[in-house]
């Protein structure tokens, strides 16, 4: 029986889709059977980031409405045989799917895959409710901005209400130089507010944009720093304790280690 992890944030553009693509690819690289689900109906782009756009025939709404079998809608990745994508419908409305239908779909997927990773749409409406239904746990993505952290906090509250407990945190697009100048929230500030365990910090890096455009997740690039960050997160999701990278924030990183020790309990 697999585990369904929803990648969510509240605020848009903070890196949910990038995170989903990289974690999925990284886990598949480590020989897990993975299904990525694009729950951002009407605004799909996980397929683009993975370079699979041109293979889509059926989508999630087709499956739910019985127009095709699940197998027909799943797209196999170019690089890994154990990685599949269930794409979102581009031309349908968000409420084409109900939370109950979504939960049922998750149940089916969990019997076939080790991990199901759901890319959640921005916002807190129907699309969000669909994406989290059937999820066993959640990973919250935020950037070091007050507004993004505020939205993440809201999402954590809503997840609790929906009985998805113990979410973990990824801080994306951190710029150590700005933190050092005092122009960006530091990791500790964010953890103080959100009070959930940290599972990774991804630096802000141009290579992400380059790789997204090429449809080649950065996690596969051995020399890339954000790639290393994602590889570390993958291993933490597998249950290993991996020390945090030094993003040139020595004092903060030191504190992080202890924090992760506590957070790694799950």
């Amino acid at each position, binding site marked *: 029986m697999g585990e369904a992890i929803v990648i969510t944030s509240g605020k848009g553009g903070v890196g949910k889709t990038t995170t989903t693509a990289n974690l999925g690819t990284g886990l598949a690289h480590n020989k897990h059977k993975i299904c990525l689900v694009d729950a951002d109906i009407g605004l799909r782009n996980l397929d683009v980031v993975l370079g699979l756009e041109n293979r889509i025939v059926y989508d999630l709404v087709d499956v739910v409405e019985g127009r095709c079998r699940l197998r027909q809608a799943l797209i196999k990745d170019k690089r890994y045989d154990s990685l599949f994508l269930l794409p979102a419908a581009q031309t349908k409305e968000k409420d084409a799917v109900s939370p109950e239908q979504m939960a049922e779909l998750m149940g089916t997927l969990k019997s076939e895959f080790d991990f199901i990773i759901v890319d959640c749409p921005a916002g807190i409406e129907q699309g969000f409710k669909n994406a989290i239904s059937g999820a066993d746990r959640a990973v919250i993505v935020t950037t070091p901005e007050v507004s993004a952290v505020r939205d993440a906090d*809201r999402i954590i509250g809503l997840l*609790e209400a929906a009985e998805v407990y113990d979410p973990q945190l990824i801080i994306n697009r951190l710029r150590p130089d700005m933190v050092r100048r005092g122009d960006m929230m530091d990791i500790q500030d964010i953890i103080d507010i959100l009070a959930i365990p940290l599972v990774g910090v991804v630096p802000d890096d141009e290579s992400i944009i380059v790789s997204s455009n090429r449809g080649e997740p950065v996690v596969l690039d051995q020399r890339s720093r954000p790639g290393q960050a994602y590889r570390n997160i993958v291993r933490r999701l597998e249950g290993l304790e991996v020390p945090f990278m030094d993003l040139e924030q020595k004092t903060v990183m030191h504190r992080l280690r202890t924090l992760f020790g506590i957070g790694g309990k799950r």
Partner: protein
Amino acid sequence: MGRGEHWTAGQPFCGARAWNEVLERFLRRGWTMTKEACVIKGNRHGLMLSVSEEASFAEILGQLREKLSAHRDFFQGAVVRLHSSAAFLSEDRVDDLAAVVHEYGMTLDRTMTLEDQRPQKQQRQKVPEFNLDDTKLIRRTIRSGQSIHYSGNVVVMGDVNAGSEIVCSGDILILGSLRGVAHAGAEGNAKAVVFAFRLEPTQLRIAHYISRAPDEKGPKPTGPELAQVVDNLIQIRPYGRFVKR
């Protein structure tokens, strides 16, 4: 006790007239002689003898003798009421105290009282007493978008994050950081207070008083603080200072 007037040995208090004057003056204000092993206080209910539970009984008797002999005339004929707990003072000890008091021409009222009988006016400046009846205890973080409404007091063991609100008719105690909006005494009780380990709210409301965080980021609070209405303004003060006084 600190606010009471100290009656120093050199002052010319003597005779019944002076006694009346003094009582008169302290009808409105509590006062204290010293704050040692034993204290003799006067208020509108008369004289009160309170003994410190920290001191040894020998110390208490010694100090009592000292004080009474220093102001022998002043205390003549007065009745002094005992203020202590029965657990601390056995029957025998009360007998001993009564004997000393009697030596100096006074009588001891043996009904013990633990109530502080200072006039109400003074108490407002003191450590507020949290009335914990009718209290909702919340053991989690209150997050953005969540709101707690309660008729009574609210105690949160956790943080109250920005974007959330707590509204209640009584006091609000946050055993964590208060970053959201807190409205205490929401049904009009201006004596309600808001307490937090880290008080950095977006907005504070007590009854119909409203205050907001300064636009400029100020220094972060370094310890527990308490907000209450003083002179028609919501005032925030470090909580430790209340305790020390």
